[in-house]
């Protein structure tokens, strides 16, 4: 289990945070992380074998999940009523339910004791099943994909009586810790199952940016209580974006409330802090179908695309670096260069926290060669 900290540990981490800024890049040592790339043209029968092959290329799921509780953070960003044109959300900006079901199935087959599918449902405390039904999904297809599949809407307390506090190693860029739904602590293996997309504020949204959505808006949202979390989630995470106020006082406040309030500064740093505090054990970035131009139909101009590719790895920075390369971007790009014209690079910031490497030269790639999987996003919206 990923454990929460004691008060003593918390104080030590906070003191460490004060000493550690500004960050020096922390070397990521050890063997080069492996990232697998797979082509998959549709969400039909070819999907399951494509995913199975990807996981085999990573060394198999069994060693990672056998006998364990696995939590999967999916991406259902925004209100279920958004569509790009008439296209269903899963064909553009949501993780496709068949990818979720196939992943759950393979995790179950590999011996996972329990699979918990998680998402902070937009502005509601309703069960995740209900949110899926609103999107015209059939939750039973996912619940029945493996022996013990559960859902939880993590935008509030959910089934727990208190929030879990997770500490950011080395003090974090902006937050030295977070208060999250218990599901992000009470799991042995954490999977980020993301959609490969551009992002208006973070340049790209991949396995790491997907975790921006693990923060409950009861604490980190516009409607959060000032002292204590609000009882119901309402609205979005404006305060994380623009820093207009601090989270509920019951949660760790920012390390430096005078740091820039600019979204392009804050969002990448908060994402890096989150994936350091809640490490991703398996990163999956799907783009069988997706959209270019932004993270959702509310970003214009944008268009639906069919890259026909899935990327997976056990290191989220490396997986996102390969995903960026698939999208036609340079994973070593820094602020001011495509796709980070208006923001810092989440990959660079996560690398500084020691989460993983973004240099393709330090990543072992398996499966479909990168050149065959490459699907440049940016020219499609120019």
């Amino acid at each position, binding site marked *: 289990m990923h454990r929460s900290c004691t008060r003593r540990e918390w104080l030590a981490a906070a003191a460490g945070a004060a000493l550690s800024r500004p960050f020096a890049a922390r070397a990521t040592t050890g063997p080069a992380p492996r990232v697998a790339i797979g082509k998959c043209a549709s969400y039909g029968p070819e999907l399951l074998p494509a995913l199975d092959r990807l996981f085999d290329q990573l060394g198999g799921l069994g060693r990672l999940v056998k006998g364990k509780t696995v939590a999967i953070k999916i991406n259902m*960003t*925004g*209100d279920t*009523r*958004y*569509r*790009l*044109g*008439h296209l269903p959300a899963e064909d553009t900006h949501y993780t496709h339910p068949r990818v979720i079901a196939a992943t759950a199935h393979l995790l179950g087959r590999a011996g996972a004791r329990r699979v918990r599918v998680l998402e902070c449902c*937009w*502005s509601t*405390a*309703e*069960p995740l*099943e*209900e949110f899926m*039904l*609103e999107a*015209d999904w059939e939750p039973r297809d996912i619940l029945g994909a493996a022996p013990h599949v559960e859902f939880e809407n993590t935008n509030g307390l959910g089934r727990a009586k208190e929030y879990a506090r997770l500490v950011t190693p080395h003090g974090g860029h902006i937050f030295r810790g977070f208060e999250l739904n218990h599901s992000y602590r009470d799991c042995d293996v954490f999977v980020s199952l993301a959609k490969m997309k551009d992002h*208006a*504020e973070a340049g790209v949204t991949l396995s790491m940016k997907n975790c921006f959505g693990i923060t409950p808006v009861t604490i980190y949202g*516009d*409607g959060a209580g000032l002292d204590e979390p609000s009882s119901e989630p*309402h*609205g*979005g*995470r*404006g305060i994380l*974006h*623009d820093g207009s106020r601090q989270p509920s006082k019951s949660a760790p406040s920012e390390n430096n409330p005078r740091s820039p309030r600019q*979204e392009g500064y804050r969002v990448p740093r908060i994402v890096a802090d989150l994936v350091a505090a809640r490490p991703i054990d398996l990163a999956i970035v799907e783009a069988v179908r997706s959209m270019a131009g932004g993270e*959702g*139909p*509310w*970003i*214009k101009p944008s268009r639906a695309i069919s890259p026909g590719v899935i990327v997976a790895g056990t290191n989220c920075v490396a997986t996102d670096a390969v995903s960026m390369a698939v999208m036609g971007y340079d994973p070593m790009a820094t602020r001011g260069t495509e796709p980070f014209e208006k923001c810092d690079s989440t990959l660079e910031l996560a690398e500084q926290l020691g989460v993983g490497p973004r240099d393709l030269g330090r990543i072992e790639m398996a499966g479909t060669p990168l050149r065959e999987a490459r699907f440049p996003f940016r020219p499609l919206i120019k």
Partner: protein
Amino acid sequence: MPNYNGCVYPNWPLRWPAEWRDPGALDLVKGTPLGCLVFPSTEGRGSVIERAGQLGLPTCATGHPPPGVEMVKGEWPGVRMAHGEGDASSGPTGAPWIDSNGWLVRLTHAKSPDSTVWVAGDPPKSNEIVPLSSHLVAVADSAAHGGRWVVTLDKALAEGLAARQARFVEGWKRLMNAIRFFESREEWSTWPADAVLGVVSSFAGDNEFFSGEVLNLMARTNVSYGILMKSRLQPDALRRLRAVLYPDADPPAPQLRQALLEFAERGGLLITGPKWGAAPGTALPDQPCVRYEIRRFGRGRIAMAYKQPDDPYEVAQDAQIIVSHRYDLVHLFNSFLLGAYSTVSPDRRRRLTHVINYGGFVGADPPTARIAGRFRSAKLWSFERPQPEPLKLAVQKDAVEVHLPPLAVYGAIELEAAEHA
């Protein structure tokens, strides 16, 4: 003298604008479907009223509608933005709050089934800019729910019309065409709601405000509801419902209690509060709503609130979750400013889903409607086209999806049920 407008009385009402002082303004009403003039005050209007009488145009004072009419105080339907991430570049925008008089029209009909319902909103302030779309939305909102909006002109429109300015005359024609659209489809106003959940209440006395607000807020969920007056509830009224909500603070009479328990026992869902009394059955292991305990009872369920609900918003939201989105009749996509109301023909062969754009402007992405049921054809009626536009059906399991064109104000999706549906 034949009726000035050749219309059947009582007809669509017009609040006589303060700006129209000359009886000659009655010419503007000639040939329109407006059949009754409503005067907030008769002071200084003697010559207009006299001339209207000569022309056979009925008049009445606000608050004293003609016999057979229930006039209720409504509000201008439209959209208010709720809190949220309003900057489109920073994420999905906040959810808008839609004001509609639909629940009020339906409740008034339920209380007085033989009456025509007129809905009167306050006149816009003299400096308020009211787009034509607001007038069209007001007409559509009342008419779709079976009522009639008391046409109330804003100052600019009234003055522009009095001066016969072309753009205002053009707007006036569009407004009258919208009314004609509903007049020529009066049959639609008699079709009952295609309800999934019935709200059973006295809607009077101590329950009046609370149960009325529940209806108002229920309309903002996706639950298709019907209104059931508990004083004259017939068991047959429950036959097609999946759920019943009993929000009243007083326990039901024995006969009503029995009827609702039998409904649950036969497979229905009863949602109520502790004032109901002890609930039979056994608690289910999975509880989808924190404020309720769901109990298995016979083939159905009883959802009993832990404490008597005092927030109608929570009651409506919780009812949506307990009933489940699985049974939503309509899902609208790209629909943040849209509202939907579904009715069914008496023979149940045709379903009508009224779609109203309360924003009065077209969004960047076109709407899509997913409608539960099995249908063999669909067409779209709108103000702009004299004939309906066929819609292509994308058939799903137990539902169809139709791609709609941008709707500036209103459209009605008419679906024909498949054989053996």
